[in-house]
């Protein structure tokens, strides 16, 4: 690797440095826009005691759900985790901890983590269990709570196209949490559908500038659909 060339050719290189008890921030919404190969590599590595920050925890047997099978996740920070029987079981057993965070607050916490903002005020969650134990305060007569930023040892991200410098574009709603996750990792790894030549992406159309990205790997994706609904019905 020289200069700004961030392409790695093995998943072992892509996730090199991941250790027990680290925090991983993962892009994706449900099964849409998830770094499938990077998740598979974390499973292969068998790393334990992970804190995983992601809007959801996949489903049984796919997405982040596979990391539950060998009890690799110690704590999940998510807004919604209701798609997963194994998750439920480990939660009830006390083998897994969950920190439920409103979806918008979660996205903003990741952005703040990447942007050097240690904390921000939001109305979301005031007066609810989410606000308990958090500082609250009024601005212009309205109540807000203080929420702190999230950063991770690793961020794992799924993009559509990236150039060798790590400039990324996302496709349709597979963007979701990926751009924020990309900014918030000490080491940010992007798994992409297509690696393109430097200069091929229009500068003002790049969703994630390469400065946030440490490693890029060519992936292949199953792209499982969670709820197939067509104009003919479910």
């Amino acid at each position, binding site marked *: 690797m020289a200069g700004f060339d961030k392409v790695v050719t093995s998943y072992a290189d892509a996730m090199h440095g991941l250790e027990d008890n680290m925090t991983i921030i993962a892009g994706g*919404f*449900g*099964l*849409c*826009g998830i770094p499938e190969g990077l998740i598979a590599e974390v499973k292969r590595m068998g790393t334990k005691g992970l804190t995983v920050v992601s*809007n959801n925890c996949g489903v049984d047997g796919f997405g982040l759900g596979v990391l539950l099978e060998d009890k690799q996740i110690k704590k999940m920070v*998510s*807004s*919604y*985790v*209701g798609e997963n029987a194994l998750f*439920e079981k480990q*939660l*009830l057993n006390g083998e897994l901890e*969950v920190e*439920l965070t*409103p*979806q*918008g*607050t*979660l*996205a*903003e916490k*990741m*952005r703040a983590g990447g942007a050097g903002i240690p904390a921000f005020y*939001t*109305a*979301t*969650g*005031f*007066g*609810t*269990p*989410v606000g308990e134990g958090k500082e609250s305060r009024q601005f212009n007569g309205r*109540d807000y709570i203080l929420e702190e930023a999230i950063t991770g040892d690793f961020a794992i991200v799924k993009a*559509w196209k990236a150039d060798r410098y790590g400039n990324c574009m*996302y*496709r*349709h*709603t*597979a*963007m*979701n*949490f*990926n*751009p*924020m996750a990309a900014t918030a990792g000490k080491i940010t790894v992007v798994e992409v559908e297509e690696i393109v030549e430097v200069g091929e992406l229009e500068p003002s159309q790049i*969703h994630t500038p390469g400065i946030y990205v440490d490693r890029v790997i060519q992936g292949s994706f199953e*792209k*499982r*659909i*969670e*709820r*197939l*609904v*067509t*104009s*003919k019905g479910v």
Partner: protein
Amino acid sequence: MALSRDQIAMRVAQEFKDGNYVNLGIGIPTLAANYVPKHIQVMLQSENGLLGMGPYPTEEQVDADMINAGKETVTAAAGASIFNSAESFAMIRGGHVDFTVLGAFEVDVSGSIASWMIPGKLIKGMGGAMDLVAGAKNIIVTMTHADKHGNSKLLSACTLPLTGVSCITRIITDLAVLEVKDKAFHLRERAPGVSIEEIIEKTAGKLVIDGDIPEMTIT
């Protein structure tokens, strides 16, 4: 007669004005999209990052990368925009979405809402609901007036953990349209054939009935 789910959705759709940006929750709220009056245009926001949600795709159009907040495959309408989750909630929390419609377990006379968690049952999470109730300019709660056992969902004070505090101003149930203000539910309309007495009976929180209460027009 109590309204059906589709009839509640029809009544909800009457609230929309031409040019409104609307976020519809899962369930009855989503059905409202089917009943938007023909002469107006609304744009649907899906909090996973899509403004201008179109109809469900044909089999040929299905794309795993194009889903809505309910994780269903969808399409983008002409004039749609797609953005990241922080931007999506900036839009919601910044008050740019005109209407949010969502379901609830309970609403109380101060406009607080409980919709995401029943202690003792498995907790699935609040998703974007807390952000939506904190951010939208107008929130409409749709729900049945009472639960299966006949217990009112319109209370003096919510008993379940809250989703948001003092944020609900309008409720559309299978029995009535109510406004929430001055620490009371104000009855505005009743479902066709539903008596004032039934509504009184099924409303546990303070109910104000001012003058004649018209029947809803469901079309």
